[in-house]
């Protein structure tokens, strides 16, 4: 009722402040605020506006040129008398990064500009309603009192933008160029090639064969690595926690040992342990009269060995987590089950397993995602070997991430590596988002 009265009181001013404030803000950021008599804020914004225009005029054309052309003058050697001189030209990669940064800053400024117009509109509307706009002092104290978390959050946000989003966009851009060892800057300029790298990777038979085979193995590997590690840990946890087991903490400590040794070290040791001729595993098998297994030299065996070693290294973590969850299951549930005459396996299946799964499901999915990207173990244990003559720069046990590493670091095929990087990025984000939105543990939290 009160509000209606105010509106009726100032009908002739209706929309006047709003329009003018917005119009002025469109002309220059801050003018609208000055018109709204928020002088300090307005002048501050105007100063930023001038600075922003200045930067836009001085660096935006260069940035756009850099992004569009990736450089025009080549670096070359020039002989001056007896000495060679390197005449530096454009460095495509730096041009791309600098261009990206400038464009990012410009986007933020445009966003601020729009926010400024909105603010002018809102304040104008308040004035029409007869409310006095905040003074600068009031604004500051309001910010200090109520907007403090936002200010603190702004710093990591900046980090996310410049250290996470920027590199990802950079990687995505590289996939559309011809950036390989043969066009390495500064001696060469990089060119935009559109979807060329995607086409080559997916259409040329030798490459697509490698890509599909490696992708398939990556998923198989991630599946088995996760399942074995998880259920191995589950079993160990149930055994350690079951009634009548003495020295529980001793068993827990013993089982956690594989995890306590740095993975880097244990993987390299495992590599020697599983050596087909000299490794202790085969030596013992030989003593027992069992034929030696080609642990690392046969494609199928090498894959199995990978999964075994990963199981050994990863089950302790699952075990610890599951022990933690087991202790939260109310005892009276089991007591009630006992009264009803449930057997041990029934209790495990109907009480323990669902209770554990409820908490563990998101973690299992994250472990699966981590295993898709489990670079260390594959690179250190088999390094992708045994070699495969049908693959392009990959061996039988290479997963996508190790293949990507080999393509970029060893073969200098940065554009192909970026295409694979984009693929991995998409797969992982799908899993991560699905994980957060679908699993029960997260849903529950959202509801509360």
């Amino acid at each position, binding site marked *: 009722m009160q509000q209606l009265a105010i509106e009726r009181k100032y009908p002739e001013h209706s929309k006047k402040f709003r329009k003018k404030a917005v119009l002025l803000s469109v002309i220059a950021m801050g003018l609208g605020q000055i018109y709204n008599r928020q002088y300090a804020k307005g002048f501050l914004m105007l100063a930023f506006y001038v600075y922003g225009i200045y930067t836009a005029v001085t660096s935006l054309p260069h940035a756009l040129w850099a992004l569009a052309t990736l450089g025009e003058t080549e670096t070359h050697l020039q002989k001056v008398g007896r000495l060679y001189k390197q005449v530096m030209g454009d460095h495509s990669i730096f041009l791309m990064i600098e261009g990206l940064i400038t464009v990012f800053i410009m986007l933020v400024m445009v966003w601020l500009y729009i926010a400024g117009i909105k603010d002018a509109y809102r304040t104008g509307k308040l004035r029409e309603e007869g409310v006095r706009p905040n003074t600068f002092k009031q604004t500051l104290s309001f910010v200090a009192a109520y907007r403090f978390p936002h200010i603190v959050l702004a710093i990591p946000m900046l980090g996310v933008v410049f250290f996470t989003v920027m590199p990802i966009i950079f990687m995505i851009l590289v996939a559309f160029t011809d950036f390989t060892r043969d066009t390495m800057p500064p001696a060469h300029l990089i060119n935009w090639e559109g979807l060329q790298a995607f086409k080559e990777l997916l259409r040329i038979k030798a490459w697509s064969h490698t890509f599909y085979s490696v992708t398939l193995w990556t998923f198989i590997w991630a599946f088995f690595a996760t399942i074995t590690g998880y259920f191995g840990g589950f079993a160990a946890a149930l055994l350690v926690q079951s009634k009548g087991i003495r020295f529980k903490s001793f068993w827990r400590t013993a089982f956690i040992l594989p995890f306590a040794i740095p993975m880097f070290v244990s993987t390299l040791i495992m590599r020697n342990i599983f*050596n087909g*001729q*000299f490794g202790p595993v085969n030596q013992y098998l030989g003593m027992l009269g069992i034929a030696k297994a080609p642990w690392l030299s046969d494609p199928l065996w090498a894959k199995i060995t990978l999964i075994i070693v990963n199981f050994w290294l990863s089950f302790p973590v699952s075990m610890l987590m599951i022990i933690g969850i087991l202790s939260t299951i109310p005892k009276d549930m089991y007591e009630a089950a006992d009264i009803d005459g449930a057997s041990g396996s029934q209790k495990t299946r109907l009480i323990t397993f669902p209770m554990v799964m409820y908490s563990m499901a998101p973690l299992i999915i994250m472990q699966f995602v981590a295993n898709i990207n489990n670079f260390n173990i594959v690179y250190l244990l088999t390094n992708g070997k045994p070699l495969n003559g049908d693959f392009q720069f990959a061996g039988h046990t290479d997963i996508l991430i190790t293949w990507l590493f080999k393509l970029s670091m060893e073969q200098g095929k940065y554009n192909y590596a970026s295409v694979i990087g984009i693929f991995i990025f998409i797969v992982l984000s799908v899993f991560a988002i699905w994980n957060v939105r679908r699993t029960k543990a997260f849903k529950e939290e959202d509801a509360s």
Partner: protein
Amino acid sequence: MTKKLGVLVLCMMLMVMLAACGGKTGSGAETTTNTANTTGNSGEEAAAEGTEELTPEPGAALTFWTIKDDFTDYAAAEFEKKYGIKVTVEDVAYWDSVARLTTDGPAGTGADVLGINNDGLGGAVKAGVILPNDYYEEETRSINRKMAVDASTIDGILYGYPRNVYTYSLYVNKDLVKDAKLETWDDIIAFSKKFNDVKNNKYGFMFEGSNAFYDVAFMTGYGGYVFGSEETDPHDIGVNNEGSIKGMEFFQKLREIMPLKLSDATRDVKTGLWEDGKLAINMDGSWNIGNYGKLPFQVEVLPLPAMPGGGDTIVLAGNTSYYVSSYSKYPNAAKMFANFITSKEMQIKDNQMTGIIPAAEGIDNDPNIRKDAIMQGFFKQMEHSRMMSNRTEMEFFWNYMGPAFDEIWNGADVKATLDKAAEGMKTSIGTK
């Protein structure tokens, strides 16, 4: 309402930070153009001053990437004593240095002088991160072996200052071999058959066959090669010619005396057996001269014997040279240091301190050169060696032939496997 104002103030704070960032990038761009100009000027000045004397830039200080050893520290100290230019030695492996320079160089934290193996040179030149050896070209050409100079040259331009050459040969444990005759491959096979005790892991002969660098040795005796014209012509591929096929058939025969999968005969395993005195003949590289000279048994080096019924076995060799970074702020001082550390006297000193095979020519009989049986054996092997290609096409050799050697060792059909690998190499090189 005030909520929104707060957001606005927050935005402004963001902008302050962003503006700071933006300012920095702008000024960064300016300074790079400035330095480009100044280095340009100094270069012209140096040229204008005449070509008689190369003078170091005032205030020069050098960063030096190499595999750090006693010799590199010694040479850096000597250089500082002589010219008063500080040299900081950083431990960067020869095979990592080019990749690091492409990122560190533009950032201004790269080396001025760096070591590169000749198989990395093609990539470095293509990327334009190193400067040619111009001022000291004649001196370098005159003191070093032709093969080392050629290995440091791409398309007729000499880039490197050769430090050493390396190859592989047969290290022999004299205590185990005693006076068994080892003049031909048949001798080695006969000896190994007698000596091998697979159950107790004792072997007569072993080599790291999963590394294609060594496997080439078994092709050359009958006329095989990787690239034509002494490994310089990547359009002429010889990995599947008649000689290579015959050589690989012999290679398969070696399984008799080395009953292992190639991937199991790893470097760690082989070195372990060798140092424990369980391996009599170890085909290994000259970079181990220093280590293997100190073992508790008597070690001798024999060149690889000729192939049965064929010609001399030519092994692949490599070269390590120092190069001047094109990002160097003190190119003159860097050139002086690269030349200083690879002078004839320094190479001899290097030989004494670390046991490298000098790249310098005609010093095999120098009284200051190490005289032990290992060193002399390698000097002999060097005469039967050929530099591996320093062109980037060499990557396709590793890529296609690695699996091929493995398959052949496991009993695949030699001709079909080699043809397939050669086909792969040709397509990859041809489509470039």
